[in-house]
């Protein structure tokens, strides 16, 4: 019986590992942080700004976002393959992922980004 088919909690459902979820959560936090760091780098460095100019009408934003999305997908695939059958300490992973996500949010804010 599939773990999704029961209406109530089954032993199989309880035994379902959290590895896939942990991979998705950590990869999302990482992607947000990478996006913010790339945005700052493209703002501060003319070389990176030029490198990030994937699509001229949109400018460096195209490269910053595309690179962050690629980094996200790659990390997600790698973590998914490594963790899918494992049960991991979620408190620690949640803290790291949330910290990265909040940092991503804050570092995209220009007054904060301009501190670097």
């Amino acid at each position, binding site marked *: 019986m599939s773990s999704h088919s029961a209406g109530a909690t089954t032993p199989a459902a309880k035994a379902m590992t959290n590895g896939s*979820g942990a991979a998705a*959560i950590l990869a999302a936090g990482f992607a947000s942080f990478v996006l913010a760091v790339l945005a700052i780098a493209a703002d501060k460095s003319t070389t990176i700004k030029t490198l990030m100019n994937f699509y001229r009408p*949109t400018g460096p934003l195209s490269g910053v976002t595309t690179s962050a999305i690629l980094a996200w997908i790659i990390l997600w695939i790698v973590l998914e393959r490594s963790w899918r059958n494992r049960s991991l300490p979620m408190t620690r992973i949640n803290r790291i992922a949330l910290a990265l996500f909040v940092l991503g949010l804050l570092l995209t804010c220009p007054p904060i980004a301009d501190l670097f």
Partner: protein
Amino acid sequence: MEITTRGLWTLVHGMGFGALYLLACSGALVELWRRYAPTDLSPITEREEAFLRWYLLAMALLAWIAVLTGTYIIYPWYRAIPQAGTVNLGGYPQRLLLSNPATSGWHSIGMEWKEHVAWLVPISITMAFAVFNHHRRNLRNHPELRAAVLSFMLISFLAAGIAGFFGAMLNKHAPVEGGEKIQLMQGESR
């Protein structure tokens, strides 16, 4: 009553995809908080589970379409550079905002933040959909996964709110206009 094609795209991007995402976000947060709490002992039906799966998928699609239309259709119009000597900056919103110290902050803070922070939204809602799609009703047995999904969605709601607020204010101070005019309705003449 007329609207330009650029104005229509901006309307669809902001009021269509963006505002709809914000509305949907509050619903998903409530549903995940209420029905998937480990303390809720009433069984989750397949219908309820399927509803939230489709709901989160629709939200993820809305978020992706919003950022892609914003970045690749509207933003190029926003940041278009006028030819030297252009006096009327009406068709060049970024230049129009930067031409006046009273409005330049709407670009240097507003747009600079909006164009990046908005991208956190599809990332987090895609993650939320993926986690829910994998665990479905079993998410109740993984309170820490549920807590992470709820936290990411809450912060993405804030990110979408920031993007939406600045989008509205930017369009108020320097609307993205141009292209063909579309007549929506014939007004009364006096």
